[in-house]
């Protein structure tokens, strides 16, 4: 599976020499970390107007998942999805460009930071409707199985999504029809400002089990744990074993959205943040590879990020006349909002 996998490694421009699994995971985590840090700078500088939902602290989940998937597997990401896309193999430059609303963006700037999609690496989308990527992934998986391939679909969502009716409905559909889907909950303990214990009665894994879907909870700060758990679920789906559910306990170091840089909310204890930072996936993954390799990868990642952000910043802006493009696949044109227009 590894040889087939389409993680960030290749994308991140490894000089071609065969890389160990640990190095591969570290590279993906470092790439996501630096991508998000650069994104926050670009938010501050006004180049990314929307702000972003940073996934700093959660990189191990994306990295482990990316390493467990084949490029032709389908992913439904979510609003905190930059890491998901990068781990799936999205080009960092085109993702920066997307977030800046440039013509060279993956989706020509029409998806932005909040709901990007990249069909070149089979990320079919990131719906803004929390939780609704799960039923879509179930439908994708059902269609893939129907077409006779061994491709699978994975849906990644947060702890806030597990109380959304459509997601719960999709667990039933996925189990009833035994679709090759993997449902992943990134439990980072909060939905915006809402602590998970104030939102979830019963348990998160119990929601999947209630519908006959095998479910397990794992440490989401260790990329190897994530990879192993995900690889198992993926293998089950691929071999016709039906859907699985995985909860990864993780944590976001930054605010829910960059608006928190100025909003000044007080829903979590700095102590708590510090504690989780002490289990930093970047450090954990870094500690597992030779210091010189780590240094080399860091330098390579730095080049990738610099090149990518420059590419995006140098990319052409969109033509204001194109505001109604892409609305319909069939190319239907709209009447303007003013008579005779």
């Amino acid at each position, binding site marked *: 599976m590894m040889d087939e996998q389409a993680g960030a490694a290749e994308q991140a421009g490894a000089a071609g020499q065969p890389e160990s699994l640990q190095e591969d995971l570290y590279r993906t985590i470092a790439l996501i970390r630096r991508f998000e840090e650069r994104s926050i700078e670009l938010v501050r500088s006004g180049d990314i107007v929307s702000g972003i939902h940073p996934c700093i602290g959660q990189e191990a989940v994306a990295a482990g998942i990316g390493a467990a998937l084949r490029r032709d597997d389908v992913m439904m990401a979510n609003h905190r999805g930059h890491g998901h896309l990068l781990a799936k193999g999205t080009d960092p430059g085109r993702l920066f460009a997307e977030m800046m609303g440039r013509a060279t963006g993956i*989706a*020509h700037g029409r998806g932005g930071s909040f709901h990007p999609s990249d069909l070149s690496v089979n990320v079919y989308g990131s719906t803004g409707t929390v939780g609704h990527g799960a039923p879509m992934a179930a439908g*994708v998986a059902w269609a893939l199985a129907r077409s006779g391939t061994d491709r699978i*679909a994975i849906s990644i969502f947060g702890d806030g999504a597990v109380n959304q009716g459509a997601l719960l*409905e*999709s667990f039933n559909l996925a189990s009833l029809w035994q679709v090759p889907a993997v449902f992943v909950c990134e439990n980072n303990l909060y939905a915006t400002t809402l602590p998970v214990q104030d939102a979830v009665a019963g348990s998160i894994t119990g929601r999947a089990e209630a519908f006959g879907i095998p479910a397990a909870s794992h440490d989401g700060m260790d990329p190897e744990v994530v990879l192993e758990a995900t690889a198992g679920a993926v293998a089950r789906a691929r071999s016709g074993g039906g859907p699985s559910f995985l909860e990864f306990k993780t944590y976001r170091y930054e605010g829910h959205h960059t608006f928190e840089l100025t909003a000044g909310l007080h829903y979590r204890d700095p102590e708590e943040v510090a504690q989780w930072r002490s289990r930093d996936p970047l450090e954990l993954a870094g500690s597992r590879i030779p210091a010189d390799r780590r240094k080399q990868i860091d330098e390579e990642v730095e080049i990738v990020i610099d090149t990518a952000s420059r590419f995006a910043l140098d990319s052409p802006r969109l033509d204001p006349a194109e505001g109604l493009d*892409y609305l319909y696949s069939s190319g239907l044109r709209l009447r303007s909002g003013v*008579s005779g227009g």
Partner: protein
Amino acid sequence: MPYLSYLRAINRALGDEMERDPAVFLMGEDVREALTNTTIGLLKRFGPERIIETPLSEQGFTDFATGAALAGLRPIVEYQIPFLLLLVFEQIANQANKVSLMSGGQARVPVTYLLPAAGWRPAWGAQHSDQPYPMFGHFGVKTVLPATPVDAYGLLVTAIRDDDPVVVFAPIAAHKVQENVVFADLAPVPLGVGRVHREGADVTVVAVGHCVHDALAVAQDMAEEISVEVFDPRTLYPFDWDGLAASLEKTGRLVVMDDSNRFCGLAAEVLATAAEEMRLVAPPRRVTRPDSAVLGCVPELDLPLQPDRGQLAVAIKEVLKGAR
């Protein structure tokens, strides 16, 4: 020539398209038993892999269809009752219909949403009687409302082949309509192209769905005194503005008969656009349900709330009297 009923036309279109394209499948509630009559014989013909019986999880299976479409299939999703389209409105208007834009043209969602029983059913109550199509037009979801079996066949076929989401409304009141047809002549009907059912010179009556037949009957009754043109847009969104303008060029007088609520309903859009951009020599008129009418459980209360021929005849006369 054989008779084709409205629901048989839908059934035939579904069968023909499933035959033609293996990517087409249908999902919904009680579709195996063909409770709405649209899927009669299809389970036998195409098997349970293409006629999918769903639990009562409308939001879930609507998103599910979006996913299947993203993966290259052409789902048809059937809803038993009009209000179910309200239950899944977010999934259709805010998700499926925005995928093309949000993906910058990378992805498409060729789903057909079929409502075989739109509108009032005697005494089925306040929650089973709506005509929720204007809101789909407002959000730019392609929407068709066939008035005849031949158009039902042709528009449904086109909807299934269209690469964008399309909602197909089949008014209960049109189910009884039958047509003499040569099956070989049945063909796709393009979206956005209306149909002049009857030529006339004095007044244009725009009617949709089952109201088309009321309009034709009234036009016939009034034929001696007044020459009524009956225009059926057939597609609500995108609307055939050129067809309407051509008719008003002739008549300059407009009445719209529509079974949705008056306030911000389809008739409102037709009057507004005509008033802005087209030839009107007299104030136009609407014949619709009251502003926010809710039809309920008692026929004697509900019938007067639905647009009828008497109201249309009066409106036509008023518009002919009127002048600016």
